[in-house]
């Protein structure tokens, strides 16, 4: 019996305190008489308490947690970045952080944070989504000036994805409204990314002396399916075979090529597009102490470090610092004429004017 006990305890040394205690008590005591059982039970209790205390104390010292609430297509990037950052953070002499991420539609994610999702860091698709959180007082109104480049460590733009060989000869925005052309783009009302598509079209029309309102009206008349999100639109185009051209984020388009084979599609870069800036910010109201603040701050600032920027390039984002990036990741991106959201008066103006209830986009579908 004694041997039995020692084996059990020895075998369960790797387990957390309460498990080890339970295993030894449960299996070993049964045939033993009452008096030793009590002492063993006491020892078990003591072991459990000690274990809990040790774990608890270790928890207080170690596991500084951080929840990053992000939007859909950033999973691969943040998965790698979390590892990279955790290593760097430990190299600075800190304990290993516990980094958690949540991905979903940008607007829905912002809503979750507003309704109490305990995010310390938000990394969303649109500045207007973070502005909404700021309006609730969860972070300072000037959050966008607290980090370089409008708090956007990486950017992207809108390009066209066409079928291999470009059979419909689509080169620029005006080709999209040609006879019989079908355009696939998600619904700007439900997809943050699709708002960039719409604004890029608007910017091209303005630069080319066309009536932008008439042009977007014409463009959306060529859209047979308005998917609710970017991924749905990519599927409709790539796997269902609907449409001649997909308006997509550049990083999504390259990801689609990578995932679905580059023998099926080509990327066409229009003459004018928009600089899409997915911004990041710290949710100051959800920071519980100075240690967590330091961690969140470092998490965001490290996004601008050369190795993190290289990671962004690798994941098809246009980042800023090319010093550590692989040359082929940088060379992939052609130069093109980019307008910014500031040309539309910022999101605080563009959002209600174009995409608000009864805004210009809604008017497209009002029967005339």
């Amino acid at each position: 019996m004694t041997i039995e006990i020692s084996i059990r305890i020895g075998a369960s040394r790797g387990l957390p305190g309460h498990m080890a205690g339970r295993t030894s008590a449960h299996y070993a005591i049964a045939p033993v008489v009452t008096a030793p059982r009590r002492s063993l039970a006491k020892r078990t209790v003591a072991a459990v308490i000690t274990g809990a205390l040790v774990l608890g104390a270790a928890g207080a010292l170690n596991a500084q947690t951080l929840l990053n609430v992000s939007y859909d297509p950033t999973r691969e990037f943040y998965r790698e970045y979390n590892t990279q950052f955790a290593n760097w953070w430990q190299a600075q002499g800190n304990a290993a952080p516990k980094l958690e991420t949540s991905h979903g539609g940008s607007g829905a994610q912002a809503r979750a944070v507003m309704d109490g999702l305990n995010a310390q860091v938000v990394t969303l698709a649109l500045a207007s989504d973070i502005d909404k959180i700021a309006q609730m007082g969860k972070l300072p109104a000037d959050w966008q000036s607290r980090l370089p480049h409008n708090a956007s460590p990486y950017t992207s733009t809108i390009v066209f994805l066409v079928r291999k060989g470009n059979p419909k000869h689509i080169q620029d925005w005006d080709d999209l409204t040609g006879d019989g052309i079908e355009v696939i783009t998600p619904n700007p009302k439900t997809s943050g990314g699709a708002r960039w598509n719409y604004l890029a079209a608007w910017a091209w029309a303005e630069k080319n002396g066309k009536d932008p309102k008439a042009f977007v009206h014409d463009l959306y008349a060529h859209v047979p399916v308005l998917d609710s999100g970017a991924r749905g639109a990519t599927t409709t185009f790539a796997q269902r075979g609907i449409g001649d051209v997909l308006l997509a984020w550049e990083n999504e388009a390259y990801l689609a090529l990578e995932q679905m084979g580059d023998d099926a599609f080509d990327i066409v870069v229009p003459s004018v597009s928009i600089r899409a800036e997915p911004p990041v910010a710290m949710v100051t109201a959800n920071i519980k102490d100075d240690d967590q603040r330091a961690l969140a701050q470092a998490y965001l600032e490290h996004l601008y470090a050369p190795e993190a920027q290289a990671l962004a390039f690798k994941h098809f984002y246009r980042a800023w610092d090319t010093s550590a990036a692989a040359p082929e990741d940088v060379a992939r991106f052609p130069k093109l004429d980019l307008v910014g959201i500031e040309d539309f008066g910022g999101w605080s103006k563009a959002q209600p004017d174009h995409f608000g209830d009864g805004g210009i986009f809604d008017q497209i579908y009002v029967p005339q």
Partner: protein
Amino acid sequence: MMAALRPRRSAMPGFGITMGVTLTMLSLVVLLPIGALVIKGTAFGPEAVWEVVNRPRTWAALWLSFRLSALAALFNLVFGVLLAWVLVRYRFVGRRLFDAAVDLPFALPTAVAGIALTTLYAPNGVFGSVLAHLGWRVAYTQWGIFVALVFVGLPFVVRTVQPVLATMDRELEEASATLGASRTRTICKVILPMLMPAALTGVALALARAVGEYGSVIFIAGNIPMRTEIAPLLIVIQLEEFNYDAAAAIGLAMLAISFVLLLAINLLQVWSRRRIENA
């Protein structure tokens, strides 16, 4: 509340406790959250609610949602009773597999169902390509919405009719046959009326479920405003703009219409049961 609910006859025990548990859980799980929605709508103001609801696009979406839901529920009524009949009354190879398949529309997350259905019915899909030859487009049209709604509502009628049919007294049928009624007449005059309350329950549930369905429809609908835009999508659109009030307004409108429909079906059911009992 309890006073109004007091039973007229009380030969049975347990009214207090069962009604107590029922009302408590109903309040906690259902009425309280819905109450929060109603309060939100009330705070928004009736005129504002009406302004959001009374737009051509909202009406188009509500009409589309309720029309297709009703059609899908009717289809499920016929197919569901047939399926329940076949599963309960006949013995054939693969019956248990069929029985198992009935619940699958629930177990598959709605988004998966939507993606799978779109894969099948898209112009390059297995069914879609055949139908395209016949000049019939299903995916990204109202037919696509219909197919998705039939799918999500399928289990309801089957599963409400099945237990009633299984425990139904066969002596009634035998009596009817002995009295010289043809089989068709027995089915129409004896069996179907007895299945009616259960079938109506199933229809009510399928209808209600279809009206609110979002996840599966969104992939196959096309979502073009005024044509293939369903009412729940309008709610999501309002939420994307952080417009909780307008979202609550459309939600309330849907709730009100569904409530009236369900109440009508349930009254019809209570009435049809009284008629059977009196007959």
